[in-house]
């Protein structure tokens, strides 16, 4: 419990800032009652929220993984499927898309304020990420088409079922990420893009890449 020994006039330093938060780690009212200099930054909620989302998505794919492992051992009907080669090209596209987004993010962070500087901020790396992400989704669809041509459908055997489930679930989340990239482009063109928004979107996009690498390894080893 803090002990305030001075009068209340020392406990408020001017009008409170418009943004609130920053409750725990800084600006705790100390024993002498003097608030430290109010800091402008509060922990951006988006940076916590994205990890909340990532945790939820991770648990979902953990459930799919455990279902795969159990199902593989539960019956004699497991037939390994031939992994479409296009998946490896898709992986390169997604990883390159992450690299491209990271390059853009670092350029954005290093960018100086000023109207001339803004006009020089070239969003091509961001556009490249978006295009490669779209190509990734198209490539996944091509993989499904290839399996269909070979007569391997969702219910053909449990291995194919998991292939479609895992790749479709991942693709749905990637499409959400593409929506996020489009939103970034919109904010950039409207000149209201904040660094936190970009950081959050980039974190999610890199997670999609890392998740895909894991899923590809799982598919190659197990399916």
């Amino acid at each position: 419990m803090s002990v305030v020994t001075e009068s209340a006039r020392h406990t408020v330093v001017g009008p409170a800032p418009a943004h609130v938060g920053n409750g725990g780690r800084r600006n705790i009212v100390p024993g002498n009652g003097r608030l430290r200099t109010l800091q402008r930054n509060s922990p951006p909620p988006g940076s916590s929220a994205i990890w909340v989302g990532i945790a939820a998505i991770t648990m979902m794919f953990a459930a799919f993984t455990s279902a795969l492992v159990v199902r593989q051992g539960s019956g004699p009907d497991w037939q390994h499927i031939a992994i479409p080669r296009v998946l490896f090209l898709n992986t390169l596209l997604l990883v390159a898309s992450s690299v491209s987004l990271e390059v853009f993010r670092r350029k954005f962070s290093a960018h100086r304020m000023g109207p001339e500087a803004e006009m020089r901020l070239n969003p091509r790396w961001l556009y490249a990420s978006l295009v490669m992400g779209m190509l990734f989704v198209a490539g996944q669809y091509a993989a499904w088409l290839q399996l269909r041509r070979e007569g391997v459908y969702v219910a053909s055997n449990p291995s194919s079922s998991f292939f479609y489930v895992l790749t479709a679930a991942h693709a749905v989340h990637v499409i959400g990420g593409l929506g996020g990239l489009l939103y970034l482009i919109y904010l950039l063109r409207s000149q209201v893009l904040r660094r936190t928004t970009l950081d959050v979107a980039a974190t999610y996009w890199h997670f999609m890449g890392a998740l895909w690498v894991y899923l590809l390894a799982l598919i190659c080893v197990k399916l």
Partner: protein
Amino acid sequence: MHDVRATQEVKHHGPPASFIRKYIFSIDHKVIGRQYYGLGLLAVFVGMGLSWLMRLHLGWTSLAIPGLGWLNPVGAPGGLMTPEYYLQLMTMHGTIMVFFVLTVAPFAAFGNFFLPIQVGAEDMPFPHINMMSFWVTFAAFAVLISSFFFGDGPSLAGWTAYAPLTAVGSIAGPGQGLGQVLWAFSIALFCVGQLLGSLNFIPTTLDLRAKGMTFSRMPQTVWAWFITSCMGLTAFSVLMPACILLIMDHLIGTSFFVPSNLVVSDQLQPHSGGSTLLWQHLFWFFGHPEVYIAIVPAMGIVSHVLITSLRRPLLSWKTIVASMVSLAFLSYMVYGHHMFVSGMNPVSSLVFSFPTLIITIPSTIIVLIWLGSIYQSRLRVNSASLFALGFISMFITGGVSGFFLAQPSLDIMLHATYFVVGHFHFVMAVAAIFGIFSGTYFWFPKMFGRMMNEPLGKLHFWLTFVGVYGIFMPFHYLGLAANVRRYQAFVDDYTTRLVPVHQFSTIFALFTGAAQLIFLYNLIHSRFWGKLATDNPWESTSLEWTTTSPPPYDNFGGRHPIIYHDPYQFGVQTASGTDYIMQDSPEESVSEETRSSS
């Protein structure tokens, strides 16, 4: 021009302009909380109505219930319930109560309303996602209820939806076609809604606390909601893929859960190799944390209400928080105690039994701290504190029976009997509901600006307290007498003799249900004609009592509170003559022997 260095600020939304923005698609967490409460209220009366129908049938199997034939001519021709229809009602009763009452009311409703206020924030960080979470949950409820009106009715497989009954389609019985798909889709939607809620709850607690609000200064309710949202994050995101796989088995013909050579209704099923135990593992990995998601917010509410009523802090708030965290952590390790007789390796039973016995320890610690804090105190008796005490009674009763079920050797005999039904109704149905009632009576003045009627509240408590003991206590006896659960009638000679016990329970169920009408009347009457409430009618200390009743759209009227104290400065002597100090008051106790919470 964008500021590349500025971190994201909390978006501030102005007051709503239109009726739709104010009452329907609102981004104000308080409106969303009230909407969730309304949904929980609707759901509890629907679920309770279903339980009346079930109990009437169990007590008087050949009774034709008026109006039931009109509702479902196939399920209840002439008002006489078929066995399948009983199971359909049972499934919907369980599903509605567990998901749309016990998860929605104490967590989503009260949490949405009070979490931002109690941490000193203007709103949740993502108000539009918060709005989406309610409407997705509402859509889930609508989808579930719609299963009554399509095809041959809702699923009859129980709220646990065990495969392969739920995976083979309509061949398995009425409601197992479209009804089961609607059930799975509804639950998957519900999971999404709650995940969107967690997406707000966790950042609010971590990042939007007001200045001076350290973790040690957060109220018990905030801790409870934070712990619950972390549990929900990991539990709901496992149930959702399970429901997706179940729908795939139904609609696409996959075999995740359906084994080979399964014959249903004399027909060989076109599935092979699936694992029925897989569904149980996935479901109960969610299912056990789910019951703690239902109870932990109620524990937080009870702690919060008790402290205000006792006018002194608990013996150790840190131990209670640590115990709630332990419950959350252990809840993932005990889920197999629902599967002792499922056919899994008996050694696994030991592995799950041990943490199940261990988990009684933090539960007991919490109860003992409450009891120790109540000892030799001068409790202010009101409806809220009565229901808080009632929670303790119900939780002890239900918890003790859980200890028996935790042991595989006993569970072999008691599994799927009324002993289990009695256990979970006490700890979940009744204890959690008592927590909801306690929170309602306590926070109603803040939510709606009016006081509830105290004499009616006390009457509601005593009638309900007696009633629920009358309903559920005999279930333990029934279970020990080998009365199997999920049977719609008792025709064997050893169960026929137990029918009078069921009739006794049914009478108490109707009596208790009638008592809830008192609560409903009190709620509605007080909402419009109750005595106007002051800002702090209970003389409590947490931040919600520093603002008006009800709070303005930005919670604090433009003020940004600064926190000086923990939320339980009670039993102190102040210069102003009160026995409490508000969290945002720089005032200190004049006594050097101020009791501080540890």
